[in-house]
Protein backbone atom coordinates (compact mmCIF):
# COMPACT_ATOMS: atom_id res chain seq x y z
CA UNK A 1 0.00 0.00 0.00
CA UNK A 2 0.99 3.58 -0.58
CA UNK A 3 3.08 5.39 2.01
CA UNK A 4 2.10 8.92 2.94
CA UNK A 5 5.37 10.75 2.36
CA UNK A 6 4.05 14.18 3.17
CA UNK A 7 0.98 14.43 5.34
CA UNK A 8 -1.24 17.48 4.65
CA UNK A 9 -1.77 18.15 8.38
CA UNK A 10 1.02 16.30 10.16
CA UNK A 11 3.72 17.45 7.74
CA UNK A 12 6.77 15.56 6.59
CA UNK A 13 6.66 12.00 7.76
CA UNK A 14 9.30 10.03 9.56
CA UNK A 15 10.76 7.64 7.01
CA UNK A 16 14.49 7.95 7.53
CA UNK A 17 16.56 4.84 7.31
CA UNK A 18 15.58 2.34 4.59
CA UNK A 19 16.46 -1.25 5.44
CA UNK A 20 15.81 -4.78 4.19
CA UNK A 21 14.47 -7.87 5.95
CA UNK A 22 12.83 -11.12 4.92
CA UNK A 23 9.24 -12.29 5.31
CA UNK A 24 8.51 -15.96 4.59
CA UNK A 25 11.89 -16.10 2.87
CA UNK A 26 11.23 -13.16 0.58
CA UNK A 27 13.47 -10.11 0.77
CA UNK A 28 11.48 -6.92 1.39
CA UNK A 29 12.20 -3.32 2.27
CA UNK A 30 10.94 -0.99 4.95
CA UNK A 31 12.13 1.64 7.39
CA UNK A 32 14.02 1.04 10.58
CA UNK A 33 11.86 1.37 13.68
CA UNK A 34 8.45 1.28 12.05
CA UNK A 35 6.09 -1.45 13.27
CA UNK A 36 6.60 -4.70 11.34
CA UNK A 37 2.87 -4.76 10.48
CA UNK A 38 3.13 -1.30 8.86
CA UNK A 39 6.19 -2.27 6.83
CA UNK A 40 4.46 -5.42 5.57
CA UNK A 41 1.29 -3.47 4.75
CA UNK A 42 3.37 -1.02 2.73
CA UNK A 43 4.70 -4.04 0.80
CA UNK A 44 1.13 -5.13 0.11
CA UNK A 45 1.23 -8.07 2.52
CA UNK A 46 -2.07 -8.63 4.29
CA UNK A 47 -1.76 -12.20 5.60
CA UNK A 48 0.36 -12.13 8.76
CA UNK A 49 -0.78 -15.35 10.36
CA UNK A 50 -2.71 -18.59 9.93
CA UNK A 51 -5.17 -19.38 12.67
CA UNK A 52 -3.52 -21.98 14.89
CA UNK A 53 -6.50 -24.34 14.70
CA UNK A 54 -8.33 -23.69 11.42
CA UNK A 55 -5.47 -22.30 9.35
CA UNK A 56 -7.64 -19.36 8.24
CA UNK A 57 -5.69 -16.33 7.02
CA UNK A 58 -5.50 -13.41 9.44
CA UNK A 59 -4.09 -9.90 9.26
CA UNK A 60 -3.73 -7.08 11.77
CA UNK A 61 -7.02 -5.99 13.32
CA UNK A 62 -6.49 -3.34 16.05
CA UNK A 63 -2.91 -2.18 15.31
CA UNK A 64 -2.31 -1.15 18.94
CA UNK A 65 -1.55 -4.42 20.70
CA UNK A 66 -5.00 -5.33 22.02
CA UNK A 67 -6.21 -8.07 19.70
CA UNK A 68 -3.14 -10.33 19.19
CA UNK A 69 -4.27 -11.05 15.61
CA UNK A 70 -1.03 -9.81 14.01
CA UNK A 71 1.32 -12.08 15.87
CA UNK A 72 4.08 -13.63 13.83
CA UNK A 73 7.53 -15.06 14.37
CA UNK A 74 10.73 -13.00 14.44
CA UNK A 75 13.85 -15.11 14.56
CA UNK A 76 15.52 -14.63 17.92
CA UNK A 77 12.45 -13.01 19.51
CA UNK A 78 9.84 -15.74 19.12
CA UNK A 79 6.18 -14.84 18.64
CA UNK A 80 5.61 -11.08 18.71
CA UNK A 81 2.78 -8.65 18.03
CA UNK A 82 3.86 -7.17 14.72
CA UNK A 83 1.89 -3.95 15.29
CA UNK A 84 4.09 -3.09 18.29
CA UNK A 85 7.43 -4.58 17.29
CA UNK A 86 9.87 -2.20 15.59
CA UNK A 87 11.43 -3.37 12.33
CA UNK A 88 15.19 -3.91 12.43
CA UNK A 89 17.64 -4.45 9.57
CA UNK A 90 18.05 -8.07 8.54
CA UNK A 91 15.11 -9.36 10.55
CA UNK A 92 13.97 -12.83 9.57
CA UNK A 93 10.20 -12.86 9.87
CA UNK A 94 7.73 -15.67 9.19
CA UNK A 95 3.95 -15.66 9.37
CA UNK A 96 2.22 -17.11 12.42
CA UNK A 97 1.54 -20.75 11.68
CA UNK A 98 -1.25 -23.27 11.95
CA UNK A 99 -0.43 -25.90 14.56
CA UNK A 100 -0.98 -29.65 14.71
CA UNK A 101 -3.57 -30.79 17.25
CA UNK A 102 -2.76 -33.96 19.12
CA UNK A 103 -6.21 -34.09 20.72
CA UNK A 104 -8.19 -34.10 17.47
CA UNK A 105 -5.41 -35.90 15.63
CA UNK A 106 -5.13 -33.17 13.01
CA UNK A 107 -1.73 -33.15 11.41
CA UNK A 108 -0.28 -30.30 9.42
CA UNK A 109 -0.66 -30.47 5.66
Amino acid sequence: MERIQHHPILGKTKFHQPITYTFNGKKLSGYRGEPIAAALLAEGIRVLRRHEESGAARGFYCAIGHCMECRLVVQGQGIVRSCLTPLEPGMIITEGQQLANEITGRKLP
Partner: protein
Amino acid sequence: MTSKGEETDLIIVGAGPAGLSAANKAAEYGLRVTVIDEFPEPGGRMLGQFHEESGHWWVGKQIADELIAEAGRRGVRIRCGVSVYGMLKVDDRFEVSTSIGALFAPRVLLATGAAEIPMPVQGWTLPGVMSIGAAQVMANVNFVKPGRRGLIVGINVLAMAIARELSVSGVSLAGIVLPPAGPLAGAAAKPKDNLELLMGLSHLAPSPILRMGSRIARSCNLAGWIANFFPRKGIRMWDIPLQLRTAAVSINGNERVESVTLAQVDAKGEILDGSQWEEPVDFVALAGGLYPLAELASVAGCPFIYTPELGGHLPLHSEQMRTPVEGLYVAGNITGVESALVAMSQGRLAAASIGVDADAIGSGGDRIVAEAMEEVGRTRAAALIQFQPGIAEARRGIYRLWQETIEVGV
Protein backbone atom coordinates in the same frame (compact mmCIF):
# COMPACT_ATOMS: atom_id res chain seq x y z
CA MET B 1 8.54 -12.00 45.85
CA THR B 2 11.56 -9.94 46.62
CA SER B 3 12.07 -6.21 46.43
CA LYS B 4 14.46 -6.36 43.50
CA GLY B 5 13.63 -3.84 40.82
CA GLU B 6 13.29 -0.17 40.19
CA GLU B 7 11.54 1.91 42.86
CA THR B 8 9.87 5.26 42.26
CA ASP B 9 7.17 7.49 43.81
CA LEU B 10 4.57 7.07 41.10
CA ILE B 11 4.11 4.64 38.22
CA ILE B 12 1.75 5.74 35.48
CA VAL B 13 0.50 3.13 33.02
CA GLY B 14 -0.28 4.79 29.70
CA ALA B 15 1.58 7.62 27.95
CA GLY B 16 -1.48 9.23 26.39
CA PRO B 17 -3.08 12.60 27.18
CA ALA B 18 -4.11 11.62 30.73
CA GLY B 19 -0.89 9.82 31.67
CA LEU B 20 1.50 12.46 30.33
CA SER B 21 -0.47 15.37 31.82
CA ALA B 22 -0.53 13.62 35.19
CA ALA B 23 3.18 12.81 34.97
CA ASN B 24 4.15 16.41 34.33
CA LYS B 25 2.00 17.73 37.14
CA ALA B 26 3.20 15.09 39.62
CA ALA B 27 6.82 15.84 38.70
CA GLU B 28 6.09 19.53 39.26
CA TYR B 29 5.04 18.59 42.82
CA GLY B 30 8.44 16.95 43.23
CA LEU B 31 7.50 13.29 42.78
CA ARG B 32 9.69 10.83 40.89
CA VAL B 33 7.54 9.53 38.07
CA THR B 34 7.88 6.63 35.63
CA VAL B 35 5.43 6.36 32.72
CA ILE B 36 5.05 3.01 30.94
CA ASP B 37 3.42 2.40 27.57
CA GLU B 38 3.51 -0.60 25.28
CA PHE B 39 3.28 1.43 22.08
CA PRO B 40 6.75 2.19 20.66
CA GLU B 41 6.28 5.96 21.02
CA PRO B 42 4.55 8.11 23.65
CA GLY B 43 1.43 10.16 22.95
CA GLY B 44 -1.27 7.51 22.96
CA ARG B 45 -4.10 7.89 20.48
CA MET B 46 -3.41 11.63 20.22
CA LEU B 47 -0.62 10.72 17.79
CA GLY B 48 -3.12 10.10 15.01
CA GLN B 49 -5.88 12.55 15.91
CA PHE B 50 -6.65 15.85 14.26
CA HIS B 51 -9.85 17.73 13.57
CA GLU B 52 -10.97 21.08 12.33
CA GLU B 53 -12.11 23.50 15.00
CA SER B 54 -13.52 26.88 14.09
CA GLY B 55 -11.19 27.37 11.16
CA HIS B 56 -7.97 25.84 12.44
CA TRP B 57 -6.70 22.30 12.92
CA TRP B 58 -6.48 20.76 16.37
CA VAL B 59 -3.51 18.42 16.01
CA GLY B 60 -3.06 15.79 18.71
CA LYS B 61 0.55 15.13 17.69
CA GLN B 62 1.52 18.72 18.51
CA ILE B 63 -0.02 18.49 21.97
CA ALA B 64 1.67 15.14 22.53
CA ASP B 65 5.03 16.63 21.49
CA GLU B 66 4.59 19.51 23.95
CA LEU B 67 3.72 17.13 26.79
CA ILE B 68 6.67 14.89 25.97
CA ALA B 69 9.06 17.86 25.86
CA GLU B 70 7.79 19.06 29.22
CA ALA B 71 8.20 15.55 30.65
CA GLY B 72 11.80 15.64 29.51
CA ARG B 73 12.43 18.96 31.23
CA ARG B 74 10.83 17.74 34.44
CA GLY B 75 12.80 14.50 34.57
CA VAL B 76 9.83 12.17 34.01
CA ARG B 77 10.99 8.74 32.84
CA ILE B 78 8.96 7.54 29.87
CA ARG B 79 9.48 3.89 28.98
CA CYS B 80 7.84 2.88 25.73
CA GLY B 81 7.57 -0.57 24.18
CA VAL B 82 7.05 -1.96 27.68
CA SER B 83 3.96 -4.04 28.47
CA VAL B 84 2.42 -4.30 31.93
CA TYR B 85 1.05 -7.78 32.45
CA GLY B 86 0.01 -7.62 36.09
CA MET B 87 0.16 -5.75 39.35
CA LEU B 88 -0.01 -6.64 42.99
CA LYS B 89 -0.07 -4.69 46.22
CA VAL B 90 2.45 -5.98 48.73
CA ASP B 91 2.37 -4.15 52.06
CA ASP B 92 2.33 -0.44 51.26
CA ARG B 93 3.53 -0.54 47.71
CA PHE B 94 2.61 -1.88 44.33
CA GLU B 95 4.65 -4.34 42.38
CA VAL B 96 3.98 -3.70 38.70
CA SER B 97 4.99 -6.62 36.48
CA THR B 98 6.32 -5.53 33.11
CA SER B 99 8.06 -7.05 30.13
CA ILE B 100 11.33 -5.54 31.42
CA GLY B 101 10.92 -6.72 34.99
CA ALA B 102 9.17 -5.55 38.13
CA LEU B 103 8.76 -1.89 39.03
CA PHE B 104 7.79 -0.70 42.50
CA ALA B 105 5.95 2.37 43.76
CA PRO B 106 3.59 3.26 46.60
CA ARG B 107 1.23 4.85 44.08
CA VAL B 108 0.02 3.82 40.63
CA LEU B 109 -2.08 5.81 38.19
CA LEU B 110 -3.89 3.80 35.52
CA ALA B 111 -4.31 5.86 32.36
CA THR B 112 -4.77 2.96 29.98
CA GLY B 113 -7.39 4.64 27.82
CA ALA B 114 -10.00 2.79 25.82
CA ALA B 115 -10.29 -0.17 23.49
CA GLU B 116 -12.57 -0.57 20.51
CA ILE B 117 -15.89 -2.34 20.36
CA PRO B 118 -16.07 -4.42 17.20
CA MET B 119 -18.92 -4.33 14.71
CA PRO B 120 -18.92 -7.86 13.29
CA VAL B 121 -19.98 -8.61 9.75
CA GLN B 122 -19.81 -12.00 8.07
CA GLY B 123 -16.21 -12.34 6.85
CA TRP B 124 -14.72 -9.91 9.40
CA THR B 125 -11.71 -12.12 10.09
CA LEU B 126 -10.39 -11.69 6.53
CA PRO B 127 -7.07 -9.86 6.31
CA GLY B 128 -7.88 -6.28 5.32
CA VAL B 129 -10.72 -5.98 7.83
CA MET B 130 -9.64 -3.83 10.75
CA SER B 131 -11.00 -1.74 13.56
CA ILE B 132 -11.45 1.88 12.56
CA GLY B 133 -8.76 2.87 15.05
CA ALA B 134 -6.33 0.58 13.24
CA ALA B 135 -7.00 2.44 9.98
CA GLN B 136 -6.29 5.69 11.85
CA VAL B 137 -3.03 4.36 13.30
CA MET B 138 -1.80 2.98 9.99
CA ALA B 139 -2.54 6.18 8.06
CA ASN B 140 -1.78 8.88 10.64
CA VAL B 141 0.82 7.32 12.90
CA ASN B 142 2.61 4.78 10.70
CA PHE B 143 1.89 6.75 7.50
CA VAL B 144 0.92 3.72 5.44
CA LYS B 145 -2.51 3.81 3.80
CA PRO B 146 -4.69 0.94 5.06
CA GLY B 147 -5.60 0.11 1.46
CA ARG B 148 -6.48 1.53 -1.94
CA ARG B 149 -10.19 1.89 -1.34
CA GLY B 150 -12.09 1.14 1.83
CA LEU B 151 -15.51 1.02 3.41
CA ILE B 152 -16.45 2.02 6.95
CA VAL B 153 -19.11 -0.05 8.73
CA GLY B 154 -20.84 1.58 11.68
CA ILE B 155 -22.03 5.16 12.08
CA ASN B 156 -20.96 6.85 15.30
CA VAL B 157 -18.78 9.65 16.63
CA LEU B 158 -15.58 7.67 16.29
CA ALA B 159 -16.40 6.58 12.73
CA MET B 160 -17.22 10.11 11.59
CA ALA B 161 -14.13 11.65 13.18
CA ILE B 162 -11.75 9.05 11.73
CA ALA B 163 -13.48 9.04 8.33
CA ARG B 164 -12.71 12.73 8.14
CA GLU B 165 -9.07 12.15 9.11
CA LEU B 166 -8.66 9.36 6.55
CA SER B 167 -10.15 11.53 3.87
CA VAL B 168 -7.70 14.35 4.69
CA SER B 169 -4.84 11.82 4.70
CA GLY B 170 -5.72 10.88 1.13
CA VAL B 171 -7.28 7.49 1.85
CA SER B 172 -10.03 6.65 -0.62
CA LEU B 173 -13.35 5.64 0.96
CA ALA B 174 -16.33 4.09 -0.83
CA GLY B 175 -18.65 5.13 1.97
CA ILE B 176 -19.86 4.80 5.52
CA VAL B 177 -22.63 2.22 5.88
CA LEU B 178 -24.71 0.59 8.58
CA PRO B 179 -23.79 -2.73 10.19
CA PRO B 180 -26.07 -5.71 9.55
CA ALA B 181 -29.16 -5.75 11.78
CA GLY B 182 -29.12 -8.31 14.57
CA PRO B 183 -28.39 -8.89 18.23
CA LEU B 184 -24.83 -7.54 18.02
CA ALA B 185 -25.54 -4.23 16.35
CA GLY B 186 -28.86 -3.45 18.05
CA ALA B 187 -29.81 0.18 17.51
CA ALA B 188 -26.57 0.81 15.57
CA ALA B 189 -28.16 -0.93 12.56
CA LYS B 190 -31.28 1.23 12.57
CA PRO B 191 -31.26 4.26 10.25
CA LYS B 192 -33.56 6.19 12.57
CA ASP B 193 -31.28 5.91 15.60
CA ASN B 194 -28.28 6.83 13.51
CA LEU B 195 -29.90 9.93 12.11
CA GLU B 196 -30.81 11.00 15.63
CA LEU B 197 -27.20 10.47 16.67
CA LEU B 198 -25.92 12.49 13.75
CA MET B 199 -28.30 15.30 14.60
CA GLY B 200 -26.50 15.52 17.91
CA LEU B 201 -23.17 15.92 16.16
CA SER B 202 -23.78 19.31 14.69
CA HIS B 203 -20.14 20.27 15.18
CA LEU B 204 -18.98 17.38 13.01
CA ALA B 205 -21.85 17.42 10.62
CA PRO B 206 -21.46 19.62 7.59
CA SER B 207 -24.26 21.57 6.08
CA PRO B 208 -26.21 18.77 4.33
CA ILE B 209 -27.19 17.20 7.64
CA LEU B 210 -27.92 20.51 9.26
CA ARG B 211 -30.06 21.48 6.29
CA MET B 212 -31.92 18.22 6.57
CA GLY B 213 -32.26 18.83 10.27
CA SER B 214 -34.82 21.54 9.91
CA ARG B 215 -36.88 19.40 7.56
CA ILE B 216 -36.65 16.49 9.95
CA ALA B 217 -37.65 18.68 12.85
CA ARG B 218 -40.91 19.39 11.06
CA SER B 219 -41.53 15.71 10.55
CA CYS B 220 -42.92 13.75 13.47
CA ASN B 221 -42.29 10.43 11.77
CA LEU B 222 -38.53 10.19 11.56
CA ALA B 223 -38.43 6.55 10.46
CA GLY B 224 -40.90 7.22 7.72
CA TRP B 225 -38.95 10.27 6.70
CA ILE B 226 -35.75 8.28 6.20
CA ALA B 227 -37.54 5.58 4.24
CA ASN B 228 -39.10 8.17 1.99
CA PHE B 229 -36.65 11.00 1.71
CA PHE B 230 -33.12 10.04 2.69
CA PRO B 231 -31.18 9.81 -0.57
CA ARG B 232 -30.70 6.21 -1.65
CA LYS B 233 -27.06 6.85 -2.53
CA GLY B 234 -26.46 8.66 0.71
CA ILE B 235 -25.29 12.18 1.21
CA ARG B 236 -21.72 13.30 0.92
CA MET B 237 -19.80 14.38 4.00
CA TRP B 238 -16.34 15.66 3.11
CA ASP B 239 -16.62 13.70 -0.15
CA ILE B 240 -17.44 10.48 1.69
CA PRO B 241 -20.89 9.02 0.93
CA LEU B 242 -22.74 8.60 4.22
CA GLN B 243 -25.24 5.86 3.45
CA LEU B 244 -27.94 5.70 6.10
CA ARG B 245 -30.09 3.34 4.05
CA THR B 246 -27.34 0.88 3.17
CA ALA B 247 -26.05 -1.99 5.31
CA ALA B 248 -23.08 -4.31 4.96
CA VAL B 249 -24.20 -7.91 4.45
CA SER B 250 -20.88 -9.71 4.09
CA ILE B 251 -17.21 -9.12 3.47
CA ASN B 252 -15.89 -11.27 0.65
CA GLY B 253 -12.55 -12.41 -0.70
CA ASN B 254 -9.99 -15.16 -0.88
CA GLU B 255 -7.51 -14.63 1.98
CA ARG B 256 -7.99 -10.86 1.74
CA VAL B 257 -10.81 -8.38 1.31
CA GLU B 258 -11.94 -8.10 -2.29
CA SER B 259 -15.46 -6.75 -1.94
CA VAL B 260 -18.33 -6.06 0.44
CA THR B 261 -21.88 -7.13 -0.29
CA LEU B 262 -24.17 -4.19 0.48
CA ALA B 263 -27.95 -3.95 0.55
CA GLN B 264 -30.62 -1.29 0.85
CA VAL B 265 -32.47 -1.40 4.15
CA ASP B 266 -35.79 -0.06 5.39
CA ALA B 267 -36.13 2.36 8.27
CA LYS B 268 -35.81 -0.50 10.77
CA GLY B 269 -32.60 -1.78 9.22
CA GLU B 270 -34.20 -4.81 7.52
CA ILE B 271 -32.78 -5.69 4.11
CA LEU B 272 -35.00 -4.98 1.10
CA ASP B 273 -35.32 -8.03 -1.16
CA GLY B 274 -33.28 -7.93 -4.33
CA SER B 275 -31.38 -4.82 -3.35
CA GLN B 276 -27.94 -6.39 -2.86
CA TRP B 277 -24.84 -5.43 -4.77
CA GLU B 278 -21.10 -5.89 -4.47
CA GLU B 279 -18.82 -2.97 -3.79
CA PRO B 280 -15.17 -3.58 -4.71
CA VAL B 281 -12.90 -2.51 -1.82
CA ASP B 282 -9.61 -3.83 -0.44
CA PHE B 283 -10.09 -2.83 3.17
CA VAL B 284 -12.95 -2.50 5.64
CA ALA B 285 -12.88 -0.47 8.86
CA LEU B 286 -15.34 -1.57 11.55
CA ALA B 287 -16.55 1.08 13.98
CA GLY B 288 -18.43 0.00 17.08
CA GLY B 289 -17.29 2.70 19.48
CA LEU B 290 -14.97 2.67 22.48
CA TYR B 291 -15.01 1.18 25.97
CA PRO B 292 -12.75 1.83 28.98
CA LEU B 293 -9.72 -0.49 29.02
CA ALA B 294 -9.56 -1.34 32.70
CA GLU B 295 -8.02 -4.80 33.00
CA LEU B 296 -5.32 -3.61 35.39
CA ALA B 297 -7.86 -2.05 37.73
CA SER B 298 -9.61 -5.41 37.81
CA VAL B 299 -6.36 -7.25 38.50
CA ALA B 300 -5.60 -4.75 41.29
CA GLY B 301 -8.92 -5.59 42.94
CA CYS B 302 -10.83 -2.42 42.16
CA PRO B 303 -14.65 -2.78 42.10
CA PHE B 304 -16.44 -1.95 38.85
CA ILE B 305 -19.65 -0.21 37.94
CA TYR B 306 -21.63 -0.47 34.74
CA THR B 307 -22.30 2.93 33.16
CA PRO B 308 -23.43 2.74 29.51
CA GLU B 309 -23.09 6.51 28.96
CA LEU B 310 -19.37 6.23 29.66
CA GLY B 311 -18.74 3.11 27.62
CA GLY B 312 -19.65 0.25 29.96
CA HIS B 313 -17.75 -1.33 32.85
CA LEU B 314 -15.44 1.09 34.58
CA PRO B 315 -13.52 1.13 37.85
CA LEU B 316 -15.33 2.84 40.70
CA HIS B 317 -13.59 6.12 41.43
CA SER B 318 -14.13 9.42 43.20
CA GLU B 319 -14.38 12.80 41.55
CA GLN B 320 -10.78 13.31 42.74
CA MET B 321 -9.74 10.21 40.69
CA ARG B 322 -9.06 7.94 43.67
CA THR B 323 -10.15 4.30 43.60
CA PRO B 324 -11.19 2.20 46.60
CA VAL B 325 -7.75 0.52 46.42
CA GLU B 326 -5.49 2.78 48.47
CA GLY B 327 -2.70 4.24 46.34
CA LEU B 328 -4.45 3.38 43.05
CA TYR B 329 -5.75 6.21 40.87
CA VAL B 330 -7.40 6.46 37.46
CA ALA B 331 -7.58 9.17 34.79
CA GLY B 332 -8.61 9.49 31.17
CA ASN B 333 -10.75 7.11 29.17
CA ILE B 334 -10.40 4.30 31.71
CA THR B 335 -12.92 6.35 33.72
CA GLY B 336 -15.26 6.75 30.73
CA VAL B 337 -14.90 7.64 27.08
CA GLU B 338 -14.43 11.36 26.50
CA SER B 339 -12.14 13.62 24.47
CA ALA B 340 -8.36 14.03 24.86
CA LEU B 341 -8.81 17.46 26.47
CA VAL B 342 -10.98 16.02 29.23
CA ALA B 343 -8.43 13.24 29.70
CA MET B 344 -5.65 15.82 30.12
CA SER B 345 -7.54 17.75 32.77
CA GLN B 346 -8.37 14.48 34.55
CA GLY B 347 -4.67 13.63 34.52
CA ARG B 348 -3.80 16.92 36.20
CA LEU B 349 -6.55 16.34 38.77
CA ALA B 350 -5.29 12.82 39.53
CA ALA B 351 -1.78 14.26 39.99
CA ALA B 352 -3.13 16.83 42.45
CA SER B 353 -4.83 14.10 44.50
CA ILE B 354 -1.66 12.02 44.40
CA GLY B 355 0.37 15.08 45.45
CA VAL B 356 -1.92 15.61 48.44
CA ASP B 357 -1.87 11.93 49.46
CA ALA B 358 1.93 11.82 49.15
CA ASP B 359 2.30 15.02 51.22
CA ALA B 360 4.12 16.56 48.27
CA ILE B 361 2.01 19.71 47.92
CA GLY B 362 1.88 21.20 51.40
CA SER B 363 -0.88 23.33 52.83
CA GLY B 364 -2.59 24.49 49.63
CA GLY B 365 -3.35 20.96 48.43
CA ASP B 366 -7.10 20.94 48.93
CA ARG B 367 -7.46 24.17 47.02
CA ILE B 368 -5.37 22.81 44.13
CA VAL B 369 -7.51 19.68 43.98
CA ALA B 370 -10.70 21.75 44.04
CA GLU B 371 -9.43 23.94 41.22
CA ALA B 372 -8.40 20.91 39.17
CA MET B 373 -11.89 19.46 39.66
CA GLU B 374 -13.45 22.67 38.42
CA GLU B 375 -11.18 22.63 35.41
CA VAL B 376 -12.34 19.09 34.51
CA GLY B 377 -15.93 20.29 34.71
CA ARG B 378 -15.24 23.31 32.51
CA THR B 379 -13.36 21.22 29.93
CA ARG B 380 -16.19 18.70 29.83
CA ALA B 381 -18.82 21.39 29.38
CA ALA B 382 -16.87 22.95 26.50
CA ALA B 383 -15.97 19.63 24.84
CA LEU B 384 -16.49 19.60 21.13
CA ILE B 385 -16.68 15.84 20.94
CA GLN B 386 -19.31 14.25 23.16
CA PHE B 387 -19.18 10.53 22.62
CA GLN B 388 -22.51 9.88 24.31
CA PRO B 389 -25.28 12.07 25.62
CA GLY B 390 -25.64 12.31 29.38
CA ILE B 391 -21.96 12.10 30.35
CA ALA B 392 -22.06 14.75 33.08
CA GLU B 393 -25.14 13.17 34.70
CA ALA B 394 -23.60 9.71 34.55
CA ARG B 395 -20.46 11.07 36.20
CA ARG B 396 -22.47 12.58 39.03
CA GLY B 397 -24.09 9.18 39.57
CA ILE B 398 -20.66 7.56 39.98
CA TYR B 399 -19.45 10.18 42.45
CA ARG B 400 -22.70 9.82 44.41
CA LEU B 401 -22.17 6.05 44.57
CA TRP B 402 -18.62 6.67 45.80
CA GLN B 403 -19.86 8.97 48.56
CA GLU B 404 -22.60 6.58 49.61
CA THR B 405 -20.35 3.50 49.73
CA ILE B 406 -16.65 4.25 50.07
CA GLU B 407 -16.69 7.51 52.06
CA VAL B 408 -19.35 6.21 54.41
CA GLY B 409 -17.27 3.08 54.75
CA VAL B 410 -19.79 0.43 53.73
